[in-house]
């Protein structure tokens, strides 16, 4: 796996194996914050940033764990690093842009339990990416997540104006939209390999 080019890692993470639409990672915020385009974009940035930091940390942690020969500590140490990163982002955002902080609400601390981030850290370890590859992988995954979120928000804003049967409204309609989006992303198969 380590001889693939950086460009193809990026494309693969962003489009072909999009984290949300192909791996089903980060579904909760995908449905939770995708009702408004504005919030969806901010959420995309925040998740992308946390992904980047978590990816670098996970790479360093993995070296350390290999050094002390304790692979069974991987899950527990990754999740602790991720939650402290999220805390950091939360504090930074509160300081730099209080308006954004308020708009994100509960979904900001919930980035901790966003499986996309832990998934990213685990995938890059399982595939044996080196430092640069990990960073590119994180950038691609972040871009893919933001793209899926923004696309979904765009569709849902239009959907609000349509007359949907009462029974289908909400999650069921969102699921069908996600399924169709995911079908669209299947068209990218074979692109980055």
């Amino acid at each position, binding site marked *: 796996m380590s001889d693939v080019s950086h460009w193809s890692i990026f494309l693969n993470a962003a489009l072909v194996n999009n984290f949300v*639409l*192909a*791996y*089903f*990672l*980060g*579904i*909760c915020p995908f*449905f939770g914050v995708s009702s408004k385009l504005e919030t969806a974009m901010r959420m995309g940035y925040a998740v992308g940033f946390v992904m980047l930091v978590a990816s670098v940390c996970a790479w360093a942690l993995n070296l350390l764990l290999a050094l002390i020969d304790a692979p*069974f500590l*991987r*899950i*527990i140490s990754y*999740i*602790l690093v991720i*939650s402290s990163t999220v805390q950091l982002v939360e504090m930074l955002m509160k300081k730099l842009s209080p308006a954004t902080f308020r708009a994100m609400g509960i979904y900001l601390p*919930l980035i*901790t*339990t*966003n*499986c996309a981030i*832990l*998934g990213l850290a*685990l*995938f890059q370890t*399982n595939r044996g990416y080196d430092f640069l590859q990990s960073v590119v992988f994180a950038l691609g995954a972040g871009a893919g997540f933001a793209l899926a979120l923004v696309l979904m928000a765009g569709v849902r804003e239009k959907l609000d104006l349509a007359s949907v049967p009462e*029974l*289908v409204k909400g*999650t*069921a309609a969102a*699921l*069908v939209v*996600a*399924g*169709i989006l*995911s*079908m669209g992303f*299947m068209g990218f198969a074979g692109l980055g390999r």
Partner: protein
Amino acid sequence: MARKEITPTDEFVKGLWRDNPVFVQVLGMCPALAVSNTAMNALAMGLATTFVLLMSGLSVSLLRNLIPREARIVCYICIIATFVTSVDYLIMALSLELHRALGAFIALIVVNCLILGRAEAFASKHGPGRALLDGLGMGVGFTAALLFIGVVREILGSGAVFGVPLFPDGFQTWTIMVLPSGGFFAMAVWLLLANRIRQKQEDAEKRAARAGT
């Protein structure tokens, strides 16, 4: 199930339908969609999650007076991560093939919002017995939901259930159902069905209440 007292039974039964984690609370969607492409994967994932739910519920409930309120989330996550690691190694020891099929999704049980949600909302406020029953109910409900999705996807996507072929050779499989988008569609249809049944139940209850008064 304990039949003499009503409340402990209720703790168990509520996870099955009224508060079903997947169809009603819409928690733990990521594994519900990601590993439900065959019935076997769905069952394994459901059982692994049930185990973690039970053990973490028990531990959180036993330690609930020792854990400081400010640091509780971190403590819960550490407890959950410990049990997830043991399940990960257990599955690897039992069946390497299954471990490969589920991949990183076993490790991702840590971030299944259902488990943290139950620890925070239930186990931290109740005794160990109740917490176990609640965990069992939620776990069975989660496994059942996963199986529903998994069975439909496997029948349509590969014409089989648990790997046993159902149709004669001429059956044209709906490959889309094993692919990611099939997961979204199967889930949407089940959710609609659950909504419809619940709506009917509520209507019936309302009518009964009106008739009573």
